[in-house]
């Protein structure tokens, strides 16, 4: 029996039990793997072995196969020879494309909100910004990352278009993973808060061009910071 290197052993063991989620077996396995891929417990390129996962969860292979099929449809895993699948590697081309899509959507979102925003929405956004400030003071990197996400999701939801935030999340899966590799970043949270403030101010003043300009500047800070990742984590990026 081949002795597996320690790094390979630990990943599957880090997965939580299925008890912690709801739905059919396949759905629960999907949920656990989806989370693990997005928070980089399973980094890009990690092999997924049906037998190993079935054993870990105490289930047959069938629900594992189904869960992996869903992940493949989402673009989070890809089929590989020798193993069932692997977590989709990152690629700069995909990251640029996702940034384009994100910018297109979020630009349109703030342009609309500048016209339709309510006082209640402004209050909630303001509270979220204040929370971001407090989390930076605490040095709470993970908390800040989540508050940052929440700011953007709130903007999307405030358009009143139900499927928009789901679509935005779906087309930014590589960005979500790549951004985690950047954490923690010394000055970025403080800069982010300033940029979020500019976006909010544009919306508050009902100045659509200003809000769009602020959002484009904010999202434009992403790609230059992502580029060095290819050097720092070459094994997470697609070969060739």
């Amino acid at each position, binding site marked *: 029996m081949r002795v597996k290197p320690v790094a390979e052993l630990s990943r599957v063991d880090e997965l939580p039990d299925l008890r912690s989620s709801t739905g059919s077996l396949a759905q629960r396995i999907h949920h656990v793997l989806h989370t693990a891929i997005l928070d980089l417990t399973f980094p890009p390129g990690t092999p997924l072995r049906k037998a190993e996962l079935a054993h870990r969860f105490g289930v047959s292979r069938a629900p594992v196969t189904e869960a992996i099929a869903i992940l493949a449809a989402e673009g989070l895993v890809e089929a590989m020879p020798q193993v069932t699948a692997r977590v989709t590697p990152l690629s700069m081309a995909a990251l640029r*494309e996702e940034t384009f*899509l994100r*910018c*297109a959507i979020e630009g349109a979102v703030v342009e609309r909100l500048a016209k339709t925003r309510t006082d209640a929405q402004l209050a909630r956004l303001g509270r979220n910004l204040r929370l971001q400030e407090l989390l930076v003071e605490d040095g709470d990197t993970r908390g800040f990352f989540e508050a940052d996400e929440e700011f953007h999701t709130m903007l999307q939801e405030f358009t009143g278009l139900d499927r928009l935030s789901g*679509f935005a999340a779906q087309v930014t899966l590589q960005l979500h993973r790549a951004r985690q590799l950047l954490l923690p970043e010394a000055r970025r949270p403080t800069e982010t808060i300033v940029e979020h403030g500019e976006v909010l101010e544009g919306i508050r003043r009902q100045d659509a061009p200003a809000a769009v300009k602020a959002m484009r500047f904010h999202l434009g800070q992403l790609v230059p910071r992502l580029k060095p990742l290819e050097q720092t984590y070459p094994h997470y990026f697609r070969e060739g």
Partner: protein
Amino acid sequence: MAMSTEFDVKKLADLSDFEGSLAARVYQSLKQAILSLDAPPGVALRKPEMCTRFEVSRSPVAEAIARLSAEGLVEVTPQSGSRVCYLSLSDFHEAAFMRSALEQAAAERVAEVRSEADLGALARSMHRQKLLAADGAREEFYLADEAFHELIHAATGYARLSAQTEIVGLHMTRARRLLLPGQRRIEDTITEHQAIFDAIKAQDGAAARAAMALHLNQVTKLIDALSESQPGLFKP
């Protein structure tokens, strides 16, 4: 527009016209019928009839219907079985917003990065549209209209943009089909496309974006008007 509640399954395109698994092909055939209004809003889709028409078992038909239901094109209820969904004005507005966001960004980007080859392809598309309009070839014009937009998607260099736009714009595409393609609308479409093309040629990103926004907004105006003149086509 008179709508019958019965659907003639002979109108469904043969599975041999499509590719993929049986379920995938049944899905594509049904979807085509729904988008072309051969299977209009409200008609029942009866599994046994479709199984007979396609000469397949229930399983691929059930899978195809599940996919169409997930997309919001078919409604499945225990009492009435499967029916083609009525158009929803809110689904339309959502799709129009998202599609417009992507297309405006695409037009702006292409204005900045377009190559001579891209310009050549777009110019040829404009010629083709004008020739088809002069001939009154409506169905072919519709396809040339779509091709113009796809050229712009391709010129961004983002391989998946066309597919993404099609996915988010599904309910907009569906509603557009209801608009009777009059000659006036064809002429206006060409004028609007010309403005987008001119801006792209002039490398003016802001103008390209504005021209695209204006172009797509015409559809929204027409659909809003249709929802008032023919409320029976829509559900709230």
